């Protein structure tokens, strides 16, 4: 009986410890433990990560600090950020631009990004391979890029409050990993559409650089022929995920 309770208890202890540390950091060190914020958010459900971070570290506080032990440093405004397109559902009928839904996860689990200036080609190829591994309903379609400053400069209704935060959320096998989240806790429904519009504009107006053309084909050439075939298949079946889903 006790053995079944132990993991839950430990998880609870971890959360309490994390919260206590945040509390102490806030009032004694006059700061926020950004490692702790990230860890706590990772323990929450995927859907609640954005809210968890914006609640614990309002005003994009943790942009100035490393959030992960694997970090290579905070994401600076001058950096270029890339977001990889894997799902045909996210691409328009013509196949040249993403739909606004491509950025919808800034309100929930966060949008994954790659930091162009520190991401070696081999690391990106490994990221793509890991993401596609064992799945039949996706392929690497292409990449969208934006300047970090353009993302951080996005405002809702020309307000003064930053609408999106870009955090350094490096992972052990992908140190160039970063994420963007909605800065507001539980963004208003009417604001979400505007945020998607601004994000799409910041990311080259939604225009996709095809996977084989990204970095002059360097990442594409790192992929196995099998993954290249899967990706090519995904790209030609744009807009018809239903057939891919059903066959998976």
């Amino acid at each position, binding site marked *: 009986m006790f053995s079944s309770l132990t993991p839950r208890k430990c998880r609870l202890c971890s959360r309490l410890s994390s919260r206590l540390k945040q509390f102490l950091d806030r009032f004694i060190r006059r700061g926020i433990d950004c490692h702790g914020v990230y860890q706590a958010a990772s323990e929450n459900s995927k859907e609640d990560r954005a809210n968890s971070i914006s609640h614990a570290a309002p005003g994009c506080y943790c942009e100035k600090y490393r959030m992960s032990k694997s970090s290579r440093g905070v994401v600076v405004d001058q950096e270029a950020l890339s977001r990889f397109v894997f799902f045909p559902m996210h691409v328009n009928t013509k196949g040249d631009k993403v739909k606004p*839904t491509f950025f919808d996860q800034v309100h929930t689990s966060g949008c994954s990004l790659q930091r162009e200036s520190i991401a070696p080609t081999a690391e990106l190829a490994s990221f793509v391979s890991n993401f596609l591994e064992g799945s039949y309903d996706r392929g690497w379609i292409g990449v969208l890029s934006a300047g970090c400053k353009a993302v951080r400069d996005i405002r809702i209704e020309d307000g003064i409050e930053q609408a999106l935060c870009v955090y350094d959320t490096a992972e052990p096998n992908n140190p160039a990993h970063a994420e963007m989240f909605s800065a507001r806790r539980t963004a208003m429904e009417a604001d979400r559409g505007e945020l998607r519009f601004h994000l799409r504009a910041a990311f080259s107006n939604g225009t996709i650089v095809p996977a084989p053309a990204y970095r002059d084909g360097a990442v594409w050439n790192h992929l196995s022929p099998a993954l290249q075939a899967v990706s090519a298949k995904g790209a030609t079946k744009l807009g018809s995920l*239903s057939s891919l889903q059903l066959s998976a």
Partner: protein
Amino acid sequence: MTIPSRLSVFGTASAAQACLAITLLSTPPTISPLASSSEQQIPPVKKTSTRLPLIKSERESTSSSVAALTDWFTTVNAVLMDESDRPTTAREKLIGEIRSWALFKENWDGEGASAPLASSLREAVAFAGILGESDLLPEAMLFAAGHAGLFWDEEKLYADLEFLGDGRIAYFIERQGDKHKGVLKFDSKKMPTVFPALLAT
């Protein structure tokens, strides 16, 4: 609906022709012997139910003719042929795409997305159905929260509609620099008054 009036404009016919027509049409069609006893038989009444009202009115009119009825069948057949042979319209494709999402399950995007919300899909389908014939058709989209959406990405129009599944639409529309956004009620029957002007191309 137009058939009886069409028939009445045809000239008189002989009594024999009229009787023949009535006899032919009021007799329920017989079904050929069934291939097997387990095969479900189509009740004859079903085959004739659509014809009877016309025939009743026909009986009252002595001016009907076999030629007129033949003409009617030809017309109906032509319409039916047109219905079955015509290509699927862009609007029907759009609606079909949205409806197909009902098959998706949780985590359809591999990143923890919620299963599509049936009420939201219905609202999006209803909205697509009442768009004006001259309106530019949008593209369909599915949000991670399971909501269906429609969007336009044209030179002079950008619009993002999210169907919240509770009879409301969250919208953001940008037209030549002017931005409009909000949440409004949608009863699935009538186009909200704000959209025709904002979505006009």
